[in-house]
Structures are given as structure tokens and as C-alpha cells.
């Protein structure tokens, strides 16, 4: 027999505790892996998609505002040193109106004669474009379309099928010319990309002879950045050079705060997991004290006993890591799906790199070893005398007494760090480690508050629980270390629930408030639901607004356009919409007087999203530099506003001002208000128009349902995580109560012998569980609210956008109820066991 055999048998002997420890590791590893995989999948998804569409072009020329420009600039760019090819194209959003519904698609208008320099098309069936086809295409013939084969199949299309497209020039029919293999440019957004000949695209989008993109293929051996500089110098005003992938930058910014939140969640999961392992191993050492003492008596050194425990940790760490990696992949599928819903985009297949798995593989055993270190050291210090006399001696007790004070100090340092986060002196990226440290410190310091809280709880509950409660609290008080551990497990669960829940609910509430103020109307007319990541939308014809306004029952029609732009060197979204002096400002203003802001907007001034204002250091009265079609121009900042578009990197501009300085056509959405009492009349007219032109009509309620659906997806993930932490906490309580009951076997026998009924014994056990729950609630709630406050202020600083902090009483009370409920449920098995003890055996128990 080797000592490894002892390790494995010991793990098998206590399957519950082994599972508990494994769960702790699985939770920690799965959280880290899933967040890492989902973040890297989503984080670069958009950039990768746009880069794929760009083909061999490593640069592209677009207009400020991404409007149209004269395509002849391509010919002049080909003379620039280092440019192998400069190929004009059109890249626009449209809606494909199929039998299966409406789908947003990217339409690429490509020059059949020259696009081969940029992109390859692997035609699976049908035919490619004829390079020698007449240009422009005949107005009466439907434009030919190439589309990705899988996407076509999903839409019920095949070669020769008619395709109805909605663009800013209206509804048009095209025909499928060929189906493409899923590679290269055809992979965009799950295949939602159509290729049409350039001339047809210009006609579809009413661009005349203009294009909106010139793809630049850099010559072999030329440095991209050098070529970029040369091209920039050759460009007329109003045009800029960018990488094709940079069209996805806005999505990355939108994701940033979500990713920060997810990293905090994964950090907290790690702490929770580590603590659960610590709890389980300390229980194990406690239960095996006699055995470990015997090993010492038989000649095992302290180091050998310590190594034995560490071996167990490694075995569990390895197994837990393997399970955690699998669980992490599964969770990343769910999380990526949630992010897809949140962003309204088809994210690609999960992007697996070695990094998250290497981290997970190190983290699992590492977490187990770190969490087991102190229990293992404690095991090594067990004295051999315990093997003989069962005396709970242990040398080196000073270390344990110091731990709570170390925890207090750690908490103080992290709180100071949290204050630094709030004041902006510490970067938001330090948020996750600070909160983890705070949680660990609080857990370490719990023994300092257990005694007074236990007394207070005993006093509070004594009238309810009677003599059984008094006995229960005596037991809780007798084993301070064990009580502290179990309280710590529940404490972590309550803190996670209260802090994460409070923070998320506050953000959800703030988002809802923002929507209520800014999204005003009874109906919304659009091409497709917007892609929240990049704010790409299908532009609708501008004359549609006038047509809608003429409908019976229509009171007001406001157009809104999302225009990608550059402000202060940053990618931003300009929200162009009409403002009127006789209507309230449709904004959730952060800074600025509403009347003055409105007046400013009508005077060519702009309103910045609070996030953008924070990141650029601009405020009311400052000048912001925007890239327009005439070059750089400065605009006065009239105010700043809460804004969730593009992660707050947004600029509000009056419609005609935007028309003057930025090149765009069409509106992304029309917000329509009905006259009082004429909603149904207006609805009928709008439905007729929608059927005719193919646009999407939503009522305000339908829109709210859409928004709520997205939010609920994120909330659902959070509640699942919190539920998991509570479930694991309950296992920790089962562990503790079982240990307590084992130790109390003789006492229980005695109590039964002197006439305590089985029911009273059960009540005593349940009272212990309730006591543990009650003791954990107060510190859990206080620390949870504290962390929620810091999370709130920290994220406000990080985003530049304040979110009102409110304690969510329902959440706090709910966490209390759940924690107590979990505690009572967890007491069921130990209570049953204790009540079922045979009196004589119990009295003789050694």
C-alpha cells in the first residue's frame, strides 16, 4: 500500500465532502474559463468579422460619417507608394425579408472586374458575377446576389430564388446567383452577408456613382503603417483611413463594461470556490485528528502529514480542474449566447485559445493547494498524544489568533483601494482583485464578530427556539473555528447575492430610466432591430418620415440616425435627431440645464455621452473636435447625458446640423407618436405601410419586451451564479452540522436518555442551522451593501456615467430568506441522523 492509496480511500470514504471540495474547484475554474472564453470570443468577434469581410485589404478608406464619396479617388490612391490595389466598394446594411422572417444583412457591392484583388469567392453552386457584365445594371432586372450557402439554407433560399431586400431606397427584389462556401468574407455574422455587383449596390442604396469604401491592398513587403500614412496624405478632406476590423471597435467598447462585470463575477466565484475548499479540508482535518495523531505516533513527521493533505488537494485539484474545464466550456456557450442576445449579433463559434485552459489548469490545483495549505499545516501540527488520549491539543496556536487581525488589515487596505476606485485614483481594472481581497479579508475576520453575533442571535431567537435553541447556541459557541468557517461560507453567498444583485439591478433600473426618458413614442419604424454592439442598422428612406407624418392619427414623427464618427480621436456614434423648442428634451441629462442644452443643440452645439465626456475630460462649455466631411471641426459642448449607446461614447447632434457636417442618408428609426385617442387609427395606417414597404413596426410595449428580454438574459445568468453559490454554501452547512452531530453523539445519547424526544433533537439541530444562518446574515448584508456601493461608484467612475445607488430591500430580504431556508434545508440530513441515534450506542460512542 502506498500513501496515495490512503489518499484515495480517504476521499472515497467521505463522498459528500469530496464532492463539496470538487464543487469548489469546479466553480472557480469554470467561472474563469467561461468568462475568459466568452470575453475573447465576443471581444474580437466583430473586429474579426469585419476584417474577414475586408479580405486581403489591410486598410480601407471611408468618409467621416461613412457616407458616400466619389469612387474615382481609388484610381489616385493606386499611385501611392506601397499600394498594390485600391478597389472601390459599397458596404451597407439592409434587411432581408424572407419567409422565415426579417434578417439584418451586410450588403457588399463589389466590382466584379477588380474585386478579385481583394476577396476570393468560393462558389459552391450557381455562378459568380460576370466580370464583363454591363454597368450599371439594367434598372428592371433584379440584381444578382451571392450569399453563403448555410445562411441561404436557413432562409429557405437556393440558386434562382428571389430575395426581397429593404434598403434606404425602399424595398427591392434581387435574385440568388450563386451560393458561397463558408469561408473568407462569406463568414461575416454567421453568413449574413450578400454580395452584389457594385453598380447594383449603388442603385440599391441610392448612391449614384458614389462608393463608401475603397479597399487598400498593401504591396508585398510594404509596411502597413507607412502605407497608411502615405494614403492619409493623399486623401481629400472628409475621408479617412482605417483598418477594416476597426468597424468592430464600437462593439468592443460596448462590451467593455460587461466584461469588467464578468471579471468581477469570476473573481468572486474564485474566492467562493477557494473558501469552500478551505472549509471542506478544515472539516476533514478536524474529523481525522485522531487518525492523523496516530500517524504521528507511528512515526510520520509533520511534513509527511502535511504532504498527505496536500496530495489529497492535488488529486482533487486535478479532478476538479478537468470537470471545471468541461463545465467552463459549457458555461461559455451559455454566456456567449447571452452576449449574442445582448448585442443582437450572431457571434462566431467559440474562440478557444490555450490561454484560458492553461490558466484553468494551473488555477484548479493551485486553488486547491492554496486553500488546503493552512489545513494541511494544521494537520501536521496535530500532536501524537491525540492518538492515545483523544485530547484536542495542537501546537503553534498563535498563528490562528493572528488570522482574524490579518483579515481585518486586508479588509482595511482593500476598502482604501475601493475608495481610490471611487475617487478615480485607482484604475477600474483593479476593481476585481480589490473586491476579491475585501471578501477574503472579511471572511478571515469573521471570528472577531462570531461571538457577539452569536450572543445577540441567541438572545433574539431564545423565545422562539426554547431549550433546544439554547443548547444549539452553546454548541455553536463551543466550536468557534468551525462556526466561523460555516458562517463564512454563508457570508460569501449572501455577499455575492447582495452585492452583485444590487449592482446589476441598479444598472438595469438606470437603463430602464434612460429608455423611458429617451425613447419616446407610441410606435417605432425600422428596418431591423439594431445591432447593439456596432449600432449598425438598416437606413430607411428619408421621405418615409413625411409619409408617416401624413397618416391619420399621426402627431409627431422623429427620425433618428446612428452615424459612426470620430471625436477627439475616438470612435463614437453620433445620434442625429430633431429637437424642438416646444418639446421637452428627450435625454437623461447628467450635466447642463435642459433649457440651455436645448437651445444649444439648436445652435449647432452638441451633447456628449457622460462616458465620452469623462474619457476625454470635456465638460459643458468645452469644445469637442469632430471629423466631418470638411475635415476637423470644433463644436461647443452644451451638456452631457447618460447614454448607453456605444458604451457612452456618443454625441447628440440636431438632425440638420448632422446633415450639414456629416454625410448620411436615411434614418435608422422613426419614432412615431399618435394624437390622443388615435393610437389604433395610426396603427392601422402604419401596418399598411409596413406591409407595402417591408419595414419593421413595433409598438412601445413590443419594444420594451425586446429590451426586457435582453436584460433578463443577463439577469438570468446572474441568478444562476448566485443560486450555485447558495447551493454550495448549503453543502458547507451540511458538513458542519454533520461534524457537530458526530462530536455530540454522546451528548445526544445522554439527552435522549434523560427524555428529550427525537423531535426535540431534530429541533436542536435545526436550531443550530438557523443560528448559523442568522449569524451570517448581518455581516453578509453589511459587507454586501458596502461592496455594492463600491461597485456602483467604481463602475460610474470607470464609465463616466453615474448610476444612482439604492439598496434593494427586496434583494436583501430575499437573500436573508434564501440563506435561512438553505440553512434549514441543509439541517435535514444531520437532524435525521441525530434523531435516529440508538441511545445505548450513542452513550458508548468514542
Amino acid at each position, binding site marked *: *500500500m*502506498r*500513501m496515495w*492509496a*490512503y489518499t484515495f*480511500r*480517504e476521499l472515497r*470514504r467521505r463522498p459528500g465532502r469530496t464532492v463539496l471540495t470538487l464543487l469548489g474547484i469546479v466553480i472557480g475554474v469554470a467561472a474563469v474559463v467561461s468568462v475568459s472564453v466568452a470575453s475573447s470570443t465576443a471581444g474580437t468577434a466583430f473586429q474579426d468579422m469585419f476584417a474577414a469581410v475586408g479580405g486581403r485589404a489591410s486598410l480601407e478608406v471611408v468618409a467621416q460619417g461613412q457616407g458616400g464619396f466619389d469612387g474615382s479617388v481609388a484610381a489616385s490612391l493606386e499611385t501611392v507608394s506601397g499600394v498594390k490595389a485600391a478597389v472601390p466598394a459599397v458596404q451597407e446594411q439592409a434587411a432581408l425579408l424572407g419567409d422565415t422572417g426579417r434578417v439584418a444583412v451586410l450588403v457588399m457591392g463589389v466590382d466584379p472586374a477588380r474585386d478579385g484583388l481583394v476577396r476570393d469567392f468560393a462558389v459552391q453552386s450557381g455562378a459568380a458575377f460576370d466580370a464583363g457584365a454591363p454597368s450599371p445594371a439594367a434598372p428592371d432586372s433584379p440584381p444578382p446576389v451571392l450569399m453563403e450557402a448555410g445562411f441561404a439554407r436557413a432562409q429557405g433560399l437556393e440558386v434562382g430564388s428571389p430575395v426581397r431586400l429593404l434598403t434606404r431606397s425602399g424595398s427591392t427584389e434581387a435574385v440568388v446567383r450563386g451560393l458561397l462556401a463558408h469561408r473568407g468574407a462569406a463568414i461575416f455574422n454567421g453568413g449574413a452577408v450578400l454580395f452584389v455587383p457594385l453598380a447594383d449596390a449603388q442603385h440599391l442604396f441610392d448612391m449614384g456613382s458614389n462608393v463608401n469604401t475603397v479597399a487598400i491592398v498593401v504591396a508585398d513587403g510594404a509596411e502597413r503603417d507607412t502605407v497608411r500614412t502615405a494614403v492619409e496624405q493623399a486623401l481629400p478632406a472628409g475621408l479617412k483611413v482605417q483598418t477594416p476590423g476597426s468597424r468592430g471597435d464600437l462593439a468592443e467598447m460596448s462590451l467593455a463594461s460587461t466584461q469588467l462585470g464578468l471579471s468581477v463575477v469570476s473573481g468572486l466565484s474564485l474566492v467562493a470556490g477557494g473558501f469552500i475548499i478551505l472549509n471542506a479540508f478544515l472539516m476533514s482535518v478536524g474529523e481525522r485528528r*485522531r*487518525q492523523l495523531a*496516530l*500517524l*504521528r*505516533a*507511528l*512515526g*510520520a*513527521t*509533520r511534513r*509527511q502529514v502535511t504532504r498527505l493533505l496536500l496530495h489529497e488537494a492535488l488529486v482533487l485539484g486535478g479532478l476538479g480542474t478537468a470537470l471545471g474545464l468541461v463545465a467552463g466550456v459549457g458555461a461559455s456557450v451559455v454566456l456567449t449566447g447571452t452576449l449574442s442576445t445582448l448585442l443582437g449579433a450572431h457571434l462566431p463559434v467559440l474562440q478557444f485559445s490555450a490561454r484560458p485552459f492553461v490558466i484553468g489548469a494551473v488555477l484548479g490545483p493551485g486553488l486547491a493547494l492554496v486553500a488546503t495549505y493552512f489545513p494541511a499545516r494544521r494537520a501536521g501540527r496535530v*500532536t*501524537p*498524544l491525540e*492518538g*492515545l*488520549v483523544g485530547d484536542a491539543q495542537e501546537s503553534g496556536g498563535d498563528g490562528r489568533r493572528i488570522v482574524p487581525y490579518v483579515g481585518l488589515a486586508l479588509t482595511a487596505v482593500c476598502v482604501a483601494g475601493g475608495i481610490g476606485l471611487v475617487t478615480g485614483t485607482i484604475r477600474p481594472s483593479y476593481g476585481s482583485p480589490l473586491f476579491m481581497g475585501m471578501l477574503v479579508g472579511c471572511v478571515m475576520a469573521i471570528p472577531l464578530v462570531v461571538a457577539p453575533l452569536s450572543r445577540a442571535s441567541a438572545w433574539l431567537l431564545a423565545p422562539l427556539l426554547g431549550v433546544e435553541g439554547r443548547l444549539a447556541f452553546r454548541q455553536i459557541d463551543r466550536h468557534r473555528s468551525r462556526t466561523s468557517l460555516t458562517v463564512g461560507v454563508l457570508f460569501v453567498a449572501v455577499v455575492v447575492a447582495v452585492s452583485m444583485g444590487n449592482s446589476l439591478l441598479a444598472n438595469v433600473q438606470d437603463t430602464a430610466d434612460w429608455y423611458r426618458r429617451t425613447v419616446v413614442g407610441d410606435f417605432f419604424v425600422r428596418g431591423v432591430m439594431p445591432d447593439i454592439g456596432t449600432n449598425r442598422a438598416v437606413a430607411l428612406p428619408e421621405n418615409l418620415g413625411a409619409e408617416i407624418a401624413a397618416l391619420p392619427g399621426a402627431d409627431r414623427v422623429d427620425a433618428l440616425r446612428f452615424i459612426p464618427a470620430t471625436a477627439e480621436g475616438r470612435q463614437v456614434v453620433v445620434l442625429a435627431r430633431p429637437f424642438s423648442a416646444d418639446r421637452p428634451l428627450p435625454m437623461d441629462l447628467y450635466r447642463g440645464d435642459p433649457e440651455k442644452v436645448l437651445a444649444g443643440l439648436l445652435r449647432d452645439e452638441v451633447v456628449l455621452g457622460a462616458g465620452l465626456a469623462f474619457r476625454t475630460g470635456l465638460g459643458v462649455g468645452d469644445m469637442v473636435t469632430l471629423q466631418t466631411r470638411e475635415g476637423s471641426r470644433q463644436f461647443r459642448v452644451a451638456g452631457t447625458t447618460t447614454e448607453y449607446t456605444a458604451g457612452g461614447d456618443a454625441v447628440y447632434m440636431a438632425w440638420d446640423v448632422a446633415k450639414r457636417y456629416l454625410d448620411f442618408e436615411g434614418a435608422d428609426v422613426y419614432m412615431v407618436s399618435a394624437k390622443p385617442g388615435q393610437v389604433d387609427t395610426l396603427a392601422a395606417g402604419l401596418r399598411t405601410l409596413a406591409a407595402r414597404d417591408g419595414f419593421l413596426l413595433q409598438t412601445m410595449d413590443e419594444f420594451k419586451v425586446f429590451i426586457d428580454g435582453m436584460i433578463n438574459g443577463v439577469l438570468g445568468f446572474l441568478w444562476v451564479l448566485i443560486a450555485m453559490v447558495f447551493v454550495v454554501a448549503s453543502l458547507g452547512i451540511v458538513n458542519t452540522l454533520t461534524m457537530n452531530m458526530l462530536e455530540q453523539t454522546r451528548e445526544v445519547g445522554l439527552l435522549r436518555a434523560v427524555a428529550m424526544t427525537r423531535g426535540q433533537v431534530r429541533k436542536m439541530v435545526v436550531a443550530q442551522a438557523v443560528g448559523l444562518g442568522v449569524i451570517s446574515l448581518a455581516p453578509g448584508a453589511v459587507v454586501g451593501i458596502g461592496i455594492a456601493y463600491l461597485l456602483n461608484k467604481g463602475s460610474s467612475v470607470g464609465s463616466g456615467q453615474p448610476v444612482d445607488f439604492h439598496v434593494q430591500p427586496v434583494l436583501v430580504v430575499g437573500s436573508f430568506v434564501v440563506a435561512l431556508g438553505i440553512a434549514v434545508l441543509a439541517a435535514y440530513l444531520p437532524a435525521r441522523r441525530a434523531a435516529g441515534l440508538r441511545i445505548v450506542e450513542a452513550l458508548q460512542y*468514542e
Partner: protein
Amino acid sequence: MTVHAEMSGTPTDVGAVEVRGLTKVFGTGDTRVEALRGVDLDVRTGEFLAVMGPSGSGKSTLLHLVGGLDRPTSGTVRVAGDELSAMEDDDLTLLRRRRIGFVFQFFNLLPILSAAENVSLPLIIDGVRESEATRRAVAAMELVGVAHRAGHRPGSLSGGEQQRVAIARALVTDPVFLLADEPTGNLDSTMGDQVIALLRRVCDEHRQTIMMVTHDARAAETADRLVTLRDGLVADRYAPSATTEGAADTPPPPTDGLT
């Protein structure tokens, strides 16, 4: 026998255990207890010594100190010439591992190991190759008459069998001496007699030095010598033939107890 190969050259006049002026005090102030108040004791190689005394006389404390399980307040303990109080914890541990065998009242077998695995445990801890450890364990179990139960776990062994396994475990490392703390305390009289007879046989046939703490006068009668402790001191030393029923509580006239 292989188990006692190392014993063959041990001279009988070399003391296996020497105790001089041994004291042990527990607690301070009002809770101060002098468990031992200056004990002098020699145990010769191959001797079977019984230690008796009323509860609180210090006999278990003496056993703990002699076995290196605890440290004296003052005085010295020498085991095969090595002074225990000068040793670090690791050295004491090695001493227990290689030179002392323990037999406890409640057997103290690990429930998750088989009988053979329990017996081989000290050798495994010492890094002996598994095959060699198993061979020696089987030999020890044959010596004590439980080899046929080698694969059984303690839970399926009788009390007497468990104690035999514990004795085999104590003997497997060829210890300088064997410490037995109330070895019959958890057994009925029949099994107890068998265990005592086994210890006697091991002492006689293999010149194993044994120091046994016991309340059992019948067990004490099988020893070569009886030492009685009272209030932390050696009350007297006398040969077992002078022992009568209840004599553990009534000290007989003192004699020269070293022969």
C-alpha cells in the same frame, strides 16, 4: 524470525530504557498538576515490565514520556542510549518510527486500511519498498497469529484480532522496545489473556523488551517485574510473585527491585 533479526546481538546488560529524575507538570497556578515528581527507572533489554498504579498516579504520563510522545518538565529519558529531551521533533518522530512500538487500549487501527496495510504502515511511512513492507508485515502477522485475516479491514475483526494486528504493527519495525497502554482494557477476559500470553511469548522467544501499563493484576502477574506508581513517584519495585489480589493499591515492603 526475520522480525527480530536485529535483536540477536543485543547484550542483556545494556539498558533499553533509562529514566532519571523524570518530572512532568501540567498547567499553572490553580490548575497546576505534578503528574510525575521525580521518577527513576531502568528497563533492561528483553525485560517485560508492568507499571501499575491508581488513577492519577502518572503511569500513562510515564509511558508517554518514555515513548517520546510528550516532553518532560525535567529529568532525562534514554532509549538505547539516545537522550530524548535533546531531540528535535523530527528526531523524536524517527525514534518512534524505528525504535518504539506502540500498542494502545483502543487498538487505533486505521479503518480504511486492511489488517496487513495497517501493519505495514510504519514501514511505508519510513519509505520501505512496498513489496518488502508487505513481506515483513505478513511475517509479523504470522508471529501473532492473524495472518489469515490480512486482507480484512478492522471493522470486520474481533477485538482480540484487532489487538493482535496492533501488536504486529508494533513489532514490524523491530523496535528497541514495545510500549503497551492498557492492552487488555478493551477486551474480555479470554481475549485479554490471549493478548497477554502473546506478549509474554514475544518477550520470551524473541527477547523483546516490553513496558506495559495496566490496571489488570492478572496481566501484571505475567510480567518479569512490576513497578507501582503512586502520586507521581515509584512506590516500590518488586517481583510479581509477591503480588496478591488488589496488591496494586497496597504497597508491599520495599525490596531491591532491579533483580
